[in-house]
């Protein structure tokens, strides 16, 4: 087995430590940015739902601004967004490359994507449930947590799964322009040095990661759907 690997994947063996390091960077970025984007995106998705016309805390001023900002960010291709954000990233994080430098543009790029999906998930909540909760004397905050969020747990999990998988793609893009992770590794060794075995292992790792996330997501959706 080991002979086989050494024979067919000499560069993987050679760069093993670098590969492990890159994979961990990707995982760390996924966890950190996934977590931050989840919190901020969920919050903004809720704000979109409650402030829109006819929402429980209707505020068209806030809604319009938020809706506009999300549209703008989503309209910019991610690669261009990272480059455009470089000065801001440098100011906020103190550095614009590496894992630290990648966090800020990743969150900025992911949040609008996730917020839109949360908005879609929450808008599926039957307006009758909101009415019932109001008739039982619930406050807007209670309605947000006990109806909107509680009733859409499966949809929120689905949105999270999709977003995490999209985030892996984003991490690779950031990596390709110096942001760390397996994207960076693939470019540096697989592409520039033309080490095919490195490319193969990066592809395999990506597929495994995405499959794992999708399976966990599907499992949780099944668990929470009644």
């Amino acid at each position: 087995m080991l002979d086989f690997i050494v024979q067919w994947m000499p560069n993987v063996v050679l760069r093993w430590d670098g590969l492990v390091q890159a994979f961990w960077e990707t995982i760390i970025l996924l966890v950190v940015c996934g977590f931050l984007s989840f919190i901020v995106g969920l919050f903004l998705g809720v704000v979109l739902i409650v402030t829109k016309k006819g929402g429980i805390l209707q505020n068209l001023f806030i809604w319009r601004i938020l809706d506009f900002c999300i549209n703008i960010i989503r309209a910019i291709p991610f690669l261009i967004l990272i480059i455009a954000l470089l000065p801001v990233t440098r100011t906020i994080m103190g550095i614009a490359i590496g894992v630290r430098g990648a966090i800020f543009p990743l969150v900025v790029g992911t949040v609008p994507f996730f917020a839109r999906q949360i908005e879609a998930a929450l808008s599926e909540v039957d307006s009758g449930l909101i009415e019932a909760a109001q008739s039982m004397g619930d406050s807007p905050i209670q309605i947000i947590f006990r109806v909107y969020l509680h009733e859409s747990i499966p949809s929120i999990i689905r949105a999270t799964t999709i977003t995490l998988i999209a985030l892996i793609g984003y991490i690779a893009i950031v990596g390709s322009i110096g942001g760390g992770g397996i994207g960076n590794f693939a470019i540096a060794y697989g592409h520039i040095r033309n080490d095919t075995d490195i490319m193969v292992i990066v592809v395999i790792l990506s597929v495994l990661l995405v499959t794992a996330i999708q399976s966990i997501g599907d499992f949780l959706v099944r668990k929470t759907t009644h």
Partner: protein
Amino acid sequence: MIEIKNVTKTFVTPKQNVHACNDISLTIEDGEIYGIIGFSGAGKSTLVRCINLLERPTSGQVLIDGAELTAMSETELRKVRKKIGMIFQHFNLMRSRTVAQNIAYPLKGSGLSNEEIQAKVKSLLKLVELEDKENAYPSQLSGGQKQRVAIARALANDPKVLLCDEATSALDPQTTHSILALLKEVNQKLGITIVLITHEMAVIKAICDRVAVMEKGHVVEEGKILDVFSHPKQEVTKNFIRSTSSVSQIYEMVEKNDPLVAIKENESLIILSYSAGNAGEALISAISRKFNVDANIVFGNVEIIANQAMGSLVVIISGELSDINQAVAYIRDAGVKVEVLKTC
């Protein structure tokens, strides 16, 4: 007591202003079952939503036991709403929660301990006869069972008032019957005032004490159910009453020239509508003797409304026209409504 005083609700839409409720005043007494009937779009839901201020009236006042809801802040209103249960056409149960969790939903923040909440849920499940469904999810229940859960949930905070917006409109007739029986039981056992909205006269007939008829945002007729049924004033009310009575078929039969209602020369087809106190059958034999006419009962029905008999008879009278006219006048004098459908 629920007092609705000059309540008007106007929805401002880009296209037009919709006057869903127009200067409506009603008083609903404690412990009664008050029906509000009207066709779709008449403004019934808007009116009932004005009672718990889910919809804030454009003008007018709503008072419950003397407390003016229309003068309250949202925070105060939330407290009041806990004492006003509400059920809906589509049940509006939380899919992510079990039956027991749905019923316990409004008890959060009520100050009850977990054990007390569980005991309360158990007793409510018993009341609505769903003790075996405690851990089921709404998706596993039938429509009637869902409405029972909704009723239990609406009663969790021991409300004084229960608002029902088309609560049986999504149910089949048999299930409707059992839900109405449950509402009646809730009304009598717990003394809860019920405001019930429907577009079906049969529902009103089955359990209401009083009824208001709504048309285009106005209450056009209002009163004790027996009075409204026996002496309907408005055309819309008559239509609703007709829709629930089997005698209504007679109009179709007349139109289609059905042999059962075919009349020969010197005959008239009439409908007598009588309410408690003046039995129609006795009159029929009386006119035969007094006016030298033959009266032949084609069909009739007697209904029990608000514990009193009410009925209609479809009769073919034959004889001289003047005798028939005298006979009809005699019946009218006896306080029975007569409608002459056809004369030959």
